[in-house]
């Protein structure tokens, strides 16, 4: 007998509803369900991405028992020993160096909102530091910072279904067909309903292909282009004067800043034709309902926050807020990156985006949690290598559901950082590259094995449900953290996730009404939802009241800065990291799904233009060596006429072709997000292909061995 369990897809932020089909305690299939965003559709990850639950050991093995490093080797131990040991070590480090010597992460993946709530509470109330952050830092950190400045909320102002009813979609550095196939569906539908689609991207992506106008800008010139858009709106008086007068501030300074960025001047920087810049801004200003969508092509630059504010300014200038099907949408890449932000797994805010530096708010949390709380902002995740290697400030790292060695830039430096730390805790579901450096491994239940809530990219709280029992001796994340907390002298004893959720709701006015019951009844609740009789909020800023301190939207423009590392003679090409539709993040999940891993596997690809390929003598499918100032790797050349000469692109999922061995650690000064989309590299042809293939095979085998593959399935 097959059972059906309704849940939410664990991959991208589209938040698709699906049924897991369960037979004899095993997941045997998935089928689409009728969710608000997906309406009975799934992409290939939704259809075939559940297989990792069966631990097929394709790439890495499931963690099944707690482990402690003894004499240099990770050995299985009992839960009592693991918790006791971890609690003692953390307490000792806290006593010796102070609470700020300990750093923790949230997890934007499977654990869900409740586990993230408990984790940030643990770091703040038990350890006594605001040093909590998560991988939003390396993706949409700039959106949270930039949009909070401009509009007051760091999330999508519109909802996903509204996309198909807009008149114009202005898409910037975002390739929905690969990152969010289900959002792409709304874009395709919008086009069918007559919307104009404008795409700005250096590559001819699938979206660029179906767009009415494609602006092929040079990588790393976003700010110049966005300023030129503002310049056109003002010079040609296309902006909405009433709207600006009533709801927006900072116009005079803005006008001054963009003055210099005439379309002709911007053309010299960006390579986009001045006439095209004018044309698209006239279209944008003229349409009744226009929406901006953007992604990593905006955020993963060292000038990301400025560009986010610049994009928000375009929507403010044209009055595109406070109604359905308008606004600005940073579309979240991971299934629960919105949720981890919502739950305050960030160094500057408690759950519900409430500032840690506001004494009134701090009092409220101190009262609820019964402890004194730190009043200064904690460290950012991307600063940790520097803080450890240069300033010797951080001693312990509690890594919860993340794999920074694979996902963070400059992997060699991340490894060195972990080695230098006194104590590294890894809490996860699969063995991974980071776990190789752990002192303690705490194995957790996975998506499909526990209850909880995810937040979709458009602020929708939705329930995930348990379908099968976990293998081995593993525990839900919130339970592990609670036990650790109790062992450190701060008792936490939650009966279930709902109890955690209700504690959280009582402290967060924006989320107060989103009870389990409401989610059950409605299928999901979009925040803000201040009370239980409130239906939730599909779009923000109704009545054009922004969530900024004085209720007005803020305009912003500033000088364009070139990316920090420029190509030169030795490293003549640029590298940008991108995604692949069938894989997800660090690939521990999709890499362990049979169908998905077959579709594309190690060592990964590098997209090269035909011009560069022929000048280097590289043919399609050959293995090539890729070298930057920080490292060298091997990957397979994929020659594509959609790529400009001088630029290359690599998917960041692969473990042998790990592009983060190459990427630089230049950071945006405000959000501390790394410049993944731009660094300098050199490509080399490998003459002996047979030997190279053999070496890749060997490397893969040894990697799998390190990941305990074949170590026996319980």
């Amino acid at each position: 007998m097959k059972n059906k369990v309704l849940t939410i897809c664990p991959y991208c932020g589209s938040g698709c509803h699906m049924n897991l089909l369960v037979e004899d305690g095993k997941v045997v299939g998935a089928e689409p369900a009728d969710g608000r965003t997906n309406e009975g559709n799934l992409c290939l990850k939704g259809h075939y991405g559940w297989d990792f639950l069966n631990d097929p050991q394709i790439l890495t093995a499931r963690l099944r028992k707690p482990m402690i490093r003894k004499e240099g080797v990770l050995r299985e131990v009992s839960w009592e020993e693991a918790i006791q040991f971890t609690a003692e070590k953390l307490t000792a480090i806290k006593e010796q160096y102070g609470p700020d010597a300990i750093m923790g992460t949230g997890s934007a993946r499977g654990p869900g909102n409740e586990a993230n709530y408990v984790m940030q509470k643990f770091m703040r109330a038990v350890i006594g530091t605001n040093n909590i952050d998560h991988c939003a830092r390396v993706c949409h950190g700039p959106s949270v910072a930039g949009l909070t400045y401009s509009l007051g909320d760091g999330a999508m102002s519109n909802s996903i279904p509204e996309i198909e009813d807009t008149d114009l979609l202005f898409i910037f550095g975002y390739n929905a067909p690969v990152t969010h196939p289900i959002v792409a569906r709304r874009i395709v539908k919008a086009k069918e309903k007559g919307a104009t689609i404008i795409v700005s991207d250096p590559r001819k992506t699938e979206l660029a292909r179906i767009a009415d106008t494609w602006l092929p800008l040079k990588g790393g010139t976003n700010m110049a282009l966005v300023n030129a858009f503002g310049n056109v709106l003002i010079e040609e008086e296309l902006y909405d004067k009433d709207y600006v007068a009533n709801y927006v501030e900072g116009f005079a300074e803005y006008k001054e800043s963009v003055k210099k960025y005439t379309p002709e001047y911007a053309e010299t920087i960006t390579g986009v034709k001045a006439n095209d810049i004018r044309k698209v801004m006239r279209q944008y200003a003229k349409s009744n309902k226009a929406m901006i969508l953007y992604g990593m092509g905006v955020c993963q630059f060292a000038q990301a926050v400025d560009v986010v504010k610049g994009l928000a300014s375009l929507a403010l200038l044209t009055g595109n807020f406070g109604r359905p099907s308008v606004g600005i949408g940073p579309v979240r890449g991971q299934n629960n990156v919105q949720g981890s932000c919502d739950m305050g797994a960030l160094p500057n805010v408690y759950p519900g985006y409430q500032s840690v530096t506001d004494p009134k708010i701090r009092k409220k949390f101190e009262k609820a949690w019964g402890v004194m709380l730190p009043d200064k902002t904690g460290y950012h995740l991307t600063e940790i290598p520097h803080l450890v290697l240069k300033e010797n400030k951080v001693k312990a790292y509690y890594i919860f559901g993340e794999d920074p060695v694979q996902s963070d830039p400059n992997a060699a430096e991340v490894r060195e950082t972990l080695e230098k730390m006194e104590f590294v805790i890894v809490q996860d579901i699969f063995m991974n590259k980071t776990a190789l450096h752990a002192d303690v491994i705490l194995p957790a239940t996975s998506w499909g094995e526990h209850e909880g809530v995810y937040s979709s990219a458009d602020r929708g709280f939705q329930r995930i449900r348990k379908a099968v029992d976990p293998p081995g001796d593993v525990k839900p994340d919130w339970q592990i953290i609670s036990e650790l907390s109790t062992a450190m002298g701060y008792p936490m004893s939650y009966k279930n996730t709902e109890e955690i959720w209700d504690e959280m709701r009582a402290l967060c006015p924006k989320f107060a009404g989103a009870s389990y019951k409401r989610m059950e009844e409605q299928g999901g609740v979009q925040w803000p939802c201040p009370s239980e009789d409130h239906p939730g909020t599909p779009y923000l800023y109704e009545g054009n009241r922004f969530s900024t301190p004085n209720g007005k939207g803020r305009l912003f423009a500033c000088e364009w800065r070139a990316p920090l590392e420029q190509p030169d003679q030795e490293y003549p090409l640029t590298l940008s990291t991108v995604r692949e539709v069938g894989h997800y993040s660090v690939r521990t999940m999709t890499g362990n799904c049979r169908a998905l891993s077959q579709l594309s596997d190690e060592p990964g690809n590098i997209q090269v233009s035909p011009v560069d390929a022929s000048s280097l003598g590289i043919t399609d499918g050959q293995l090539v060596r890729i070298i930057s100032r920080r490292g060298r790797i091997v990957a397979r050349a994929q020659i594509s006429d959609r790529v400009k000469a001088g630029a290359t692109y690599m998917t960041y999922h692969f473990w042998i072709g790990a592009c983060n061995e190459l990427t630089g650690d230049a950071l945006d000064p405000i959000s501390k997000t790394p410049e993944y989309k731009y660094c300098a590299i050199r490509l080399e042809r490998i003459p002996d292909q047979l030997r190279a293939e053999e070496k890749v095979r060997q490397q893969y085998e040894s990697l799998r061995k390190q990941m305990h593959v074949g170590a026996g399935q319980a």
Partner: protein
Amino acid sequence: MRKERPNSFVIAEAGKCIGCKACELACFAVHNRDNGVAAAVGTVTMPVIPRLYVIRTDSFTMPVQCRHCENAPCAGVCPVQAIVQEEGAITIDEDRCIGCKACAMACPFGAISLYKAYSSGQEHKQPHLREQLNGRLERKTRVIAYKCDLCHDIASDGNTASGEIAGAGAVNNSGSLTEGGGGPVPACASVCPEQALTLVSPSFGASRSRKAAGLRL
């Protein structure tokens, strides 16, 4: 029912396709249930073998697959009559196929590819032909021609599980895919999140075009 009219076929709209390959995986999964794909236990080591191919050029992305030609050139060149017209579809009898590649050369759409044959998840070895492998003479794996069969065998026991055949008008195909005659929807069309694939019945298409032309007058 289908015998009365030209063969149906599945066609993609390039304007909708985003190149996500969900269709390729669905086709693979639905045809390899005997090889353990989509079953939960054990690891299948066979490669993904689809019967439609997402192609990407500078300005184009869409899957290409068999058109089920009425005067199928592939069948014309098959020396062992492994390709037959069967209930509104052109199908290859994979047991009969000798892997001679004539059909692949003859197909104007490139809809036929040759891959290894698998049974129960294992490479299917030939009884007599041997080849040098790892320094030894070993039985050679069969290689056969694969192409779209309109989910011919599978459609009859339609099932809404992932990658399998959804009944027409199921929640994920909002009605528009039933043009082929209201029967089961092929796997590729039923999973495409963009509704880019349609099972077309040419007679229906023609009458629709005639009607549209009439209305324009």
